[in-house]
């Protein structure tokens, strides 16, 4: 879980840093911001996050169906307990 958060965070930062780097390289005028690479970086960031979310949902199906099963099995097991 922590790993996922870390990855999310770093992927979030990466384009930000990249575009920040771009800014220093291309233009140091504060009035001419490189919006083009910012846009691309931002979109990459959005897509990466989105895909990670989807991946999470897809993996959820395996892990959660397991945990779901164990949860839903509980009452059944109990109901199946013979009456002494």
């Amino acid at each position, binding site marked *: 879980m922590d790993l996922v958060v870390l990855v999310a965070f770093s992927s979030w930062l990466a384009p930000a840093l990249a575009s*920040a780097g771009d800014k220093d390289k291309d233009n140091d005028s504060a009035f001419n911001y490189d919006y083009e690479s*910012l846009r691309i970086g931002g979109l990459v*960031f959005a897509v990466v*996050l989105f895909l990670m*979310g989807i991946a999470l*949902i897809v993996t959820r199906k395996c892990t959660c169906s397991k*945990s779901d099963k164990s949860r839903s099995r509980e*009452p059944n097991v109990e109901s199946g307990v013979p*009456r002494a």
Partner: protein
Amino acid sequence: MGDKDDRSPKKKKGATKDMDDLKKEVPITEHKMSVEEVCRKFQTDIVQGLTNAKAAEFLIRDGPNALTPPPTTPEWVKFCRQLFGGFSILLWTGAILCFLAYAIQAATEDDPAGDNLYLGIVLTAVVIITGCFSYFQEAKSSKIMESFKNMVPQQALVIREGEKVQINAEEVVAGDLIEVKGGDRIPADIRVVSAHGCKVDNSSLTGESEPQNRSPDCTHDNPLETRNIAFFSTNCVEGTARGLVICTGDRTVMGRIATLTSGLETGKTPIAKEIEHFIHIITGVAVFLGVTFFILAIILGYSWLEAVIFLIGIIVANVPEGLLATVTVCLTLTAKRMAKKNCLVKNLEAVETLGSTSTICSDKTGTLTQNRMTVAHMWFDNQIHEADTTEDQSGASFDKSSVTWLSLARVAGLCNRAQFKGGQDSLPILKRDVAGDASESALLKCIELSCGSVRVMRDKNKKVAEIPFNSTNKYQLSVHETEDPNDNRYLLVMKGAPERILDRCTTILLQGKEQPMDEELKEAFQNAYMELGGLGERVLGFCHVLLPEDQYPKGFAFDTDDVNFQTDNLCFVGLMSMIDPPRAAVPDAVGKCRSAGIKVIMVTGDHPITAKAIAKGVNPRDAKACVIHGTDLKDLSQDQMDDILRNHTEIVFARTSPQQKLIIVEGCQRLGAIVAVTGDGVNDSPALKKADIGVAMGISGSDVSKQAADMILLDDNFASIVTGVEEGRLIFDNLKKSIAYTLTSNIPEITPFLLFIIVNIPLPLGTITILCIDLGTDMVPAISLAYEMAESDIMKRQPRNPTRDKLVNERLISIAYGQIGMIQALGGFFSYFVILAENGFLPSILVGIRLNWDNRSVNDLEDSYGQQWTYEQRKIVEFTCHTAFFVSIVVVQWADVIICKTRRNSVFQQGMKNKILIFGLFEETALAAFLSYCPGMDVALRMYPLKPTWWFCAFPYSFLIFVYDEVRKLLLRRNPGGWVEKETYY
């Protein structure tokens, strides 16, 4: 009531009078009349039946013999209900106000801002889409309901003009002479005129699991109890009977119950009440804010029309646009989850009702019990043995080695007319269908289970003669050849009412040896009989004798009509007792209900002793059930009734009629309880309808009961109710969290507008961005809270008090609006001021700048550094601020969704196991980034790309929210009942 009146359609009478009338007991009197009188009354003949002409005439007069289906609501009415019910009203009001505001603007300004128009359109769209969604959701469950309907047309055998004809049951009229045989469904209410071993299964009407004998004699004043009336839609189990139809269609006992049911008014569901309460609070807050700022605006010198626009703007900004969809989706998710666990919910709102339930009135037969007689105890060798009554044969077994047991099993197997229906060898014995009487079937299954095939036993011991059971001699006997081919004696076996059997016995079998019956043994027998009877069980005695060969040589002609053989001086073998045992899962489920603070009341049509025995079996820990007879219920005053319902934890109502069940439910509701009723029979349907939530049985339930119910247990398992309660309580808690989460972002959405009015700064957040939050980024996290696990054992706490524990209370509003929301607004304004400052507008210059800022003709507005800004340039900065404010709200909502996961526990205790929630976090951030960075957004939604640093402006506030709420929850846990809990626990 005159029967003539009764039969003619009651068109003139008012509906209310009808209902009162229906609540009274059945007005049938024919059972007390002689057959001739009945014939005269219906102008019919006991041999010939009705003439065809008369029948046709009666059919026109009375109408077809079918139940009028309950009035169905047209589909468009259902759709409108979804569109305009509950929460939607709030959004509609908002939409109308928006259009109004736009109209005012359009009339007064040359170039009106389109915001209000867009907002109005979006609100309308949201309501319509959500309405369609829930409409289709409910249509889906009602489609499943449709599939339950029994489509097979019933046939009836009538005698008209002396000829037997098979006709459609709908064409049966009063006065018809009809014949029924085992396996038939009785086509109308009939007065029995002759019967041969006829038994009917009245369980759907009265709840008795044992088939009842039918005979021509009147045995009881109450038409429901007397033997000479058989009722519409009950089943004839065995034997044949002939009878005169006395009532048809809606005038039958069954029809009256169905009409009573469909006529009952039901109140609002608890969750609908909660949402209404919530709307009141929200409206209150919105109107308060609106009016306050309206007055302020007037004082500040705005024009009257401008102030009205502000007023409307503020009120509409308070409407949580996304909440309707969130609540609907949360309820749908829970409904789906419940359907997976075999609880089918007909009405979305009923999902939560079981969670609020404080009393469950349960029918006994078929719900708590297995609805099949099973041998529970035996008495032989002067000792009571317990048989296994569980469904899966996992219970304790008894000593099968005794010789007496073998003899007992032989008698029970041979003196028994029940047999398994063919082609079921692969099924487990208990699941097989049996042709025959319920108690004989019980014996058959018991013997088959413990001694092997009964058929082989019967083949070895060929039956020579038989006297079937009848009510005068109260025994059944048969004579068989013995297993040993060299033994030419005949074996006589007999079973029947224990005292009658004992009278015929002079010896008793003990440890396989015949011993003379002495007083001591007789007393032992009496004690055993009393004990088993006291358990509510039906006891049968068994005896046998080997007939002496010299008197009854091989080939002796046994005459069963004029009994020419010995029927006394027999040898007593033992007793067997039967009961309809509770289902295996029931005691456990009832125990769980009680620990969840839910009172379980058993309401049954059965006899008090049986009812009490089942109550004991179902709840072994507390055997002090208060048993109330249905007929006593009539004499109780309202106060006495309230007293009983309030002061007894365990109540059993026995021999109750459908009308009395209704009274019991009404009594519980009068005491403020939220009542769930479970049942399967027609007799339960009025109570099912009246209850806050009616739960019908999917397999055994009758159509009428399923129609009246709000929820259906597809597996007929009472334990599923516990699941329902659990899910209902969980969704109530989770809805609170969802609402708390959704409402919080309202404050950072309103405050920009308020400051815009009061201190005249450029607008920090626009309508479009607000909609992006409410209908975009906030949606998935809000819905994901429905997947949140319970914080503590929700089945160990008391049911919520509907007057005190509200879905939304002032504490929730105070947390969401007053505390977390304020921090969020701070975060948003911080990024707003940062961006403006970076562009040259320091906060000090902003106050009061609005008029110039928004003025198209000012194209040289100077900032703090003296730079000049054109209108378009200014607007780009403003919309970048909107985007940054929007992103800031997303950032602070991260923390908000995490703190909303729990109401008491720390997040560290709860964990982050809810993957949907994590998905929600990713998704909302991705959406925010997409909206900000996607090319074209500056034109489409006026959203501009943000510099990465601006994303971090709100981070400290997000962190602050998290810490603030963790500390609050820590204090709350440390000081239970303390100030923090009283003021902030929602």
